[in-house]
């Protein structure tokens, strides 16, 4: 499986992750699909995405909003693309749309068959077992605007991912508390940092933090 989990940040901050993305893509003239978390103004996000990745000589992109109906023609092309990027936004809304359109198993199959799946913030959280991290901690969370109860996501990795992490005691307290009762490990990444999964290998890019068993660890 090939995955890239971006936390957030600007082009400059994400240079190393982008390099990893291009290495994993390893194809001439690839097709990259952009899936926004919501169609609201997603055309603008798509534009920025295209402008950014055009710098890596990628020229073929598909814009695929999923909270508006789509036809099988475009869907089949998406599933044939070389990489799919899950964008940031409201994680609850995004998951709800993915579930409504029955895309979760399709995306999982895409990744398991070797397609490159990347995600930023909400999109990265989506690759984990569930999106609990989107509602956590209380002082820095997405609003569950769609009131979904089933938070199960793609479950492609065996850790939880927390994007936009700020290294402060406020976060430390809540994440330590969380991992004291959970057997899950949380990888918390500040903007510009992230995780690259290549087959069974996992690589951290930038300064990342891990919370496990009530303790905090610094990675890199």
């Amino acid at each position, binding site marked *: 499986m090939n995955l890239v989990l971006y936390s957030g940040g600007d082009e400059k901050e994400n240079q190393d992750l982008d390099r990893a993305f291009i290495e994993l893509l390893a194809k001439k003239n690839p*097709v990259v699909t952009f899936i926004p978390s919501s*169609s*609201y*103004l997603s*055309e*603008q996000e*798509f*534009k920025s995405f*295209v402008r950014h990745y*055009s710098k890596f000589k990628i*020229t*073929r*992109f*598909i*814009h695929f*909003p999923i909270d*508006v*109906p789509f*036809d*099988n*023609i*475009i869907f089949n*092309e998406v599933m*044939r*693309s070389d990489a799919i990027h899950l964008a940031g936004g409201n994680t609850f809304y995004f998951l709800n749309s993915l579930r409504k359109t029955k895309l979760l198993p399709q995306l999982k199959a895409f990744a398991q068959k070797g397609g490159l799946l990347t995600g930023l913030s909400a999109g990265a959280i989506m690759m984990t077992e569930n999106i609990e991290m989107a509602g956590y901690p209380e002082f820095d969370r997405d*609003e569950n*605007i769609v009131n979904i109860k089933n938070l199960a996501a793609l479950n492609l990795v065996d850790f939880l991912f927390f994007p936009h992490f700020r290294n402060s005691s406020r976060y430390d307290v809540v994440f330590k508390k969380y991992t004291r009762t959970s057997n899950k490990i949380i990888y918390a990444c500040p903007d510009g940092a992230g995780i690259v999964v290549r087959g069974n290998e996992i690589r951290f890019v930038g300064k990342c933090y891990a919370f496990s068993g009530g303790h905090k660890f610094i990675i890199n």
Partner: protein
Amino acid sequence: MNQIKKCHTDEVGKRSYTNFAHLNGEHPFKKLVPGGRVEYKARYRKGGKVAFFNFDLAKEMGLIAKTHPHTLTPDLEKEILETFSLTIINEYDVINKVKFPEEDIFPNTFMATRYLQLQHPDKMGRTSGDGRTIWNGTVRHNGTTWDVSSCGTGGTKLSPACNINKKFYQTGDPSISYGCGLSEVAEGLETLFFSEVLGKNGFKTERVLAILEFDKGIGINVRANPNLIRPSHFFGHLKQGNLETLKQVSDYYISRQSENKAWEQTSFKSDKEKYFYMANQVARALAETAAKFEDEYIFCWLDWDGDNILMDGGIIDYGSIRQFGLFHAEYRYDDVQRFSTTILEQRQKARYMVQCFVQIADFLSTKKKRSLSHFKNHPIMQSFDKHFVDCKNRNLLQKIGFKKNHVEHLLKNHISKVTKFRKVFSYFERAKSKRGAYKVPDGINRDALFCMRDILRELPQLYLARNTNLSCQEFTEIIKSSYARKSDLKLTNLRKKQINRFQSQYFSLIATLEKDLDLSKGQQLLELTMRASVINKYDRVTGDSITYIVQKVQKLRPKLACHELFELSQQFTVYQNLNPDQKVVAHQAPERHKNIMQNFHSIVRECREGL
């Protein structure tokens, strides 16, 4: 009620709301076109609240300072109410000697203008005009003079009810609806949401400055535009052969256009040159508007009276305005006594209006009124026809997503290719359901089958990804609308030919630019993918969606403050801005607004193919 303004301040010590003082009933039209208006005394109307205020427009008009926060301060609210909360003292009040406290009566009169309206039995414009509207006045700011008028300020003698029933009505008389002189807050909200969206998308339109609210959903809707004169303001006097007033209206209108620098030419060697220049300007504006209405599926009920439209083709009176999701070219609104025109008939109505303006120019120059048919083949009419077709071609290339310079290149050098593509595009756009015409809640319609926005949005990215044409089945799958039945979608030989033609001609435009301008096909398709995704976005507002959104807003309104309604209208406009060149910045909206906006999105999505 004292109209001498106290100086409320919007920035302590720096600037006051003094510009509101110009909106006191005084208007140059009153003096310059005495035969074109009726004057009314007015009284302050108590119990009003400001439901909406357009802070951005007020800044553009110089009514509030640029730095004014988007908050309705007590002083600003007072100023708005003191300026706009009024009811005219009409003929009924005078005849019945209805008494009003002296201090509530405004010192100046307010005018209602005369214009032709087809629903009046007279059909000559002698009795018709503003039936429930008065003009508040003008404000000038940054080189532009703005007209401001208010709808719902009482029944005038120019209303259809007065003339059909031959009696004067008391304002608010419950025995009649439209003629009672009042307006509803919902009408103002419809105009607000629609006009802000259309305005942002390049339509000329009236705009809502404020909505005042009274008991039982009654409101006063204040609108503004740099020139609120309509063709119908001329046509009544033309029909009557009233040269003097027709000349006054024309001179008044031309002088405002010059004052606002709306026209390139501002000085003229002769009257003849001046009036024919005006006719030419109207021809260009109405050709552009008629083409844009057709291409953006705007139903405006253009008709021979020249009502419902401003002289520059701007939209006024949103009561009958609709934007269809598909090209429902046979929809007719049922107005009880008559059916409206269809979208396709609007061109002929616009053409008729232009012909009237040629007749006006000739009448004013020669002082002889020749028959309208005499001008059927006047060069201005030919210029209207040509400009209409030019605009249709330009509109289509823009809808595909081509950049401005590429559009111009294709129009200038490869018009036959553009025309060919437009022909095949129209084949699909105008395809109609086998079901035939049927009754819809407010009229009749025959469904369109295909959603052209969908194919223009998806085609470039599918080509980009696959580098092959779509099969006929795939093409149909993408373009079909929810109105299409199985029998409508049968792949006949003709349909197959047209699908192939559509794709080959689409590609031929791209290949032409590749050859002429050295732009790679991939580069172009990527650019088209990005631009078409904005221009042809899945969710585009329709008339039905605006109606439902306004119903939603009405339910929420008791808890929506004036500034919140303003913010929502702005957010909605940003979401519906289909200009691919505009840098869109999403508003940082509070959580509550996000939920409301989600609701609006669902409504727009739900109604996207409808009327």
